[in-house]
């Protein structure tokens, strides 16, 4: 597995996934920096088709962001045109905002791909007035973020241990999301209920395209 992780302080919470991956799976971690985009793109390009590419970072409907300079903000790592070449016949998980829309624009390119809708994990992800008001107490976002990372890790580890296919991994993730929604729906803490709604939105926008029988991980540790 190859994990592509942009250097960006706003996604520090994803480090827990990387730490777990290092312990449990044979993987290569690429820390993406704006000044070395070429290295990252070359790595994706030269990666073997059997390897799963896991992108952990920010995204938008037309592409993926790389690292972030404080002064200049997020920098685009790649858009559809490059994606079509680099992701050709590859197994890809894009754990980034609106990657489901991004994947949908060239879905036939991938061997298999998993994408997500809006993943509201930071204040900056609350773009609409409605969301800004609804989640103004950022505790709900924090609860959502922590739960999401934990369940992502659990399914990640399980899929690796059980030698799951992409479909099994996707179902495992959905099952954990559903359990989380069930738990939060019974909570008396309004922030947990709001976190449950964010989890619900996330689930509704998740997609799996391509060969769902492809293996989640090619080489186990």
């Amino acid at each position: 597995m190859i994990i592509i992780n942009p250097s960006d302080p706003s996604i520090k919470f994803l480090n827990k996934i990387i730490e777990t991956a290092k312990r449990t799976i044979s993987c290569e971690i690429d820390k993406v920096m704006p000044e070395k985009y070429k290295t990252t793109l070359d790595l994706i390009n030269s990666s073997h088709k059997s390897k799963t590419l896991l992108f952990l970072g920010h995204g938008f409907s037309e592409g993926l962001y790389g690292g972030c300079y404080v002064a200049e903000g997020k920098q685009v790592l790649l858009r559809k045109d490059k994606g079509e070449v680099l992701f050709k016949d590859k197994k890809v998980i894009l754990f980034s905002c609106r990657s489901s829309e991004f994947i949908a624009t060239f879905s036939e390119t991938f061997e298999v791909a998993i994408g997500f809708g809006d993943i509201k994990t930071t204040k900056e992800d609350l773009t609409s007035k409605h969301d800004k008001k609804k989640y103004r107490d950022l505790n709900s976002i924090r609860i959502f973020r922590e739960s999401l990372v934990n369940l992502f890790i659990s399914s990640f580890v399980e899929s690796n241990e059980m030698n799951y296919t992409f479909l099994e991994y996707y179902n495992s993730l959905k099952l954990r999301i559903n359990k989380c929604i069930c738990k939060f729906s019974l909570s008396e803490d309004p922030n947990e209920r709001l976190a449950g709604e964010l989890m619900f939105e996330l689930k509704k926008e998740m997609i799996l395209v391509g060969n769902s029988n492809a293996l989640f991980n090619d080489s186990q540790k």
Partner: protein
Amino acid sequence: MKHCLIIDDQDQKDQIALLESESLRLGFPITGHFFNITEPDLLYREIMDGKPVDLIDVDKVIEKLKIKYINNQFDLIACDYQYDDKIIDGLKLIQFLKENNFKGKKMPYLIYSNDHEEVKDKLQGEVRQHIDDKNTLMTFLESYFDSKPDAVIERTSYYNSIIEFLKKNKTPLSIKLDSKLREYPEKKFNNIFPRFKDKTLLELANMIQKSSAESDDFESEFLERSVAHFIFLEK
């Protein structure tokens, strides 16, 4: 517990008592509900051959059925074939109930009659008319069960056939869900699915009965969460 609605113009108390006791004895309890289709408020008067005749007003029938059974869902509806009426018979009634989506598109119907062979001949005759016509056969078959009963049975001891039918044909999940929601019609939905928040369970049951893309979405979510709830996961 299964529920069967019986529509007839003669009292069916004895048959319902047998249905309930026999099904209970078999460990497959069924409750019977009787609806008299020739109650005075469901009739209208017409002059036929110079004489006043009382006829069944099907619009009133459907209206009364909908009101009377708003909080009930059934696993089966059984109708008599012959009524004391010059126009309406069991087949026409079933067609009418189905067209009006009474209790949903998946609701199974039985028809019972002393002349059940005659009813079967009538239905088979309709099929025969289309069998050699390539242009209309498929369309006819596709829409056949939209207006016809699922089975035709003999009237004598028809309660046994109802038990057999319900044992053999499992109640669709959507009907079970509809039925369960109607047990608490005034309670409000307050789980995580914002689109349906604060709807009463009766409103949700009615939505499921209409069978739309929206209800499909609700039913899928309901199933997903139920399955998730039943599964224990290690941390």
